[in-house]
């Protein structure tokens, strides 16, 4: 009896020690091999081969590949890497395995299109992905919206964007903003207002919290860019009329050009600098802004950005 108990104790201890040792060893292996898992997945790049290997359970395999694409993009983005070369093949495999995997088109194209560090800087591949999606899901207005969005934001191709929004607007199930966007693109109307409309449509048409938050951040950034542009124009006008820069934004208020102290979306007042520029009080708090930044400062970006 005593011997049995001793053997049990020793076996239990060996088991726990071995487990701890194995976990430690695996951790060390992971540190050496970093992104090996993702690279391994691309040893098989043919969706036809994967389709056969999956024995028909392609849906689950496509979900796995889409998740890997998200993880890969997040990992590279988090590490400030500009190397996204596996992103397009991962998305290609995911969508070929399951051509109806809509999130892979909608979000995948917007991982691909923007310039680094926000995306992979491959707008042509993003367009190809969305076109493949439309080919297999011609009744999904969101895909036409994504197509128009990329034409507008990445290529400033108004004709392409107009065509995409117009085609999406003709679908039986569509978004009420699609014809409006098509018309605005056709007219090349006000950049700020058009961009605001696009982000508002993005916000209203998704339930994904991260995407909604991203849309809100872009809407706030647009607000700042528009405010700063307008305030700097007023400062220039003041300088032209009075021959000197205003001492503060209150001078613009006294001139009757603005009402109250203008605030940025975080509730902080804009600052008038000695050279007549307008800056936000805390530029790190408002992402994606291109105006109102101290000289030389780059537009603040989130650690992982997903767009429309």
């Amino acid at each position, binding site marked *: 009896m005593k011997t049995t108990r001793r053997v049990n104790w020793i076996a239990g201890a060996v088991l726990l020690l071995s487990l701890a040792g194995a976990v430690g060893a695996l951790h060390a292996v992971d540190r050496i091999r970093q992104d090996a898992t993702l690279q391994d997945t691309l040893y098989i790049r043919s969706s036809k081969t994967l389709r*056969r290997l999956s024995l028909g*359970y392609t849906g*689950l395999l496509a979900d796995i590949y889409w998740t890997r694409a998200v993880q890969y993009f997040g990992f590279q983005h988090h590490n400030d890497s500009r190397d996204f070369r596996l992103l397009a093949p991962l998305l290609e495999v995911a969508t070929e395995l399951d051509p109806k995997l809509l999130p892979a088109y909608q979000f995948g194209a917007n991982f691909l299109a923007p310039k680094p560090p926000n995306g992979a800087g491959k707008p042509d591949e993003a367009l190809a992905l969305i076109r493949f999606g439309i080919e297999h899901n011609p009744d999904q207005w969101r895909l036409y919206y994504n197509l128009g969005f990329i034409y507008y934001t990445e290529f400033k191709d108004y004709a392409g964007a107009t065509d995409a929004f117009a085609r999406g607007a003709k679908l039986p199930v569509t978004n009420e903003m699609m014809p409006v966007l098509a018309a605005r693109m056709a007219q090349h109307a006000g950049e700020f207002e058009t961009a605001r409309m696009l982000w508002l449509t993005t916000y209203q048409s998704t339930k994904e919290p991260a995407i909604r938050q991203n849309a809100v951040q872009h809407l706030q950034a647009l607000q700042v860019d528009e405010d700063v542009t307008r305030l700097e124009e007023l400062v220039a006008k003041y300088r032209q009329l009075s021959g000197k820069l205003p001492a503060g934004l209150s001078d613009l208020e006294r001139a009757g050009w603005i009402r109250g102290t203008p605030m940025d979306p975080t509730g902080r007042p804009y600052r008038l600098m000695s050279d007549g520029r307008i800056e936000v009080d805390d530029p790190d708090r408002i992402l994606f802004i291109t105006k109102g930044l101290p000289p030389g400062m780059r537009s603040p970006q989130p650690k992982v950005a997903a767009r429309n």
Partner: protein
Amino acid sequence: MKSRIASVAFNTFREAVRDRVLYNLIAFALLLSGAAILVGQISIDIERLVVVNLGLTAVSLFGVVIAIFIGIGLVSKEIEKRTLYTVLSRPVRRWEFVVGKFFGLTGTLVVNTFFMAIGVFLALLYVAHKFEAMDAWVLVALYFIVLQFLIVCALALFFSSFSTPLMSAVFTFALFMIGSLSEDLRGFASITRGIGGWLATAVAYLVPNFSALNVINRVAHGDAVPGRLILYNSIYALLYSAMAISGAVLIFQRRNLK
């Protein structure tokens, strides 16, 4: 006759439960709850898709593995333990024994699938917070999976009626793989001319067609499954199982058990 088949079936079910077959439900529950909780954090916008795809794929694969590994031992184990002689010395005919075994195993898998289906729907409720009309199609996919089990059970029983457990497992699994790729086989047959074409066509129709029974991806996207497909798949699975069981009965009737 009915009560004898039912007795064999019930005992087969009881034996499977005693062999802790239903323990796979714990692994299934862990897999599905883990996926439902984690997928929202590691992916984007595919929570429902993953629950349906992963849930139904797991139901299917767990069931196929159970069907193969229990099915292959249904006859040989009884011979090895010599319990078969006790059964057959009573007024139980050999064909009744085979059919009873088949119903016992499929019954086990139906019960197993029922509990897994509850798990799938609970996970769906967790990720979507409500059921939608398109979730009803998941039931059709589950029904097709059960039809798949009927065929696999029948095949496992057929091979185990004349072969060793190991070889039966190999044969059944190979047929499951070929059957899952039967559309490729059909495509190959359609582009091959002459005797090769005839041969490929014959093989394509002889192997079980599991690809038509796999509508997991379709229902994951909420697409409808045509009523005609449900009808023809049901007829096909029943006839194919009947064919394999008949083969098993024919062989088992002639088998020398001494």
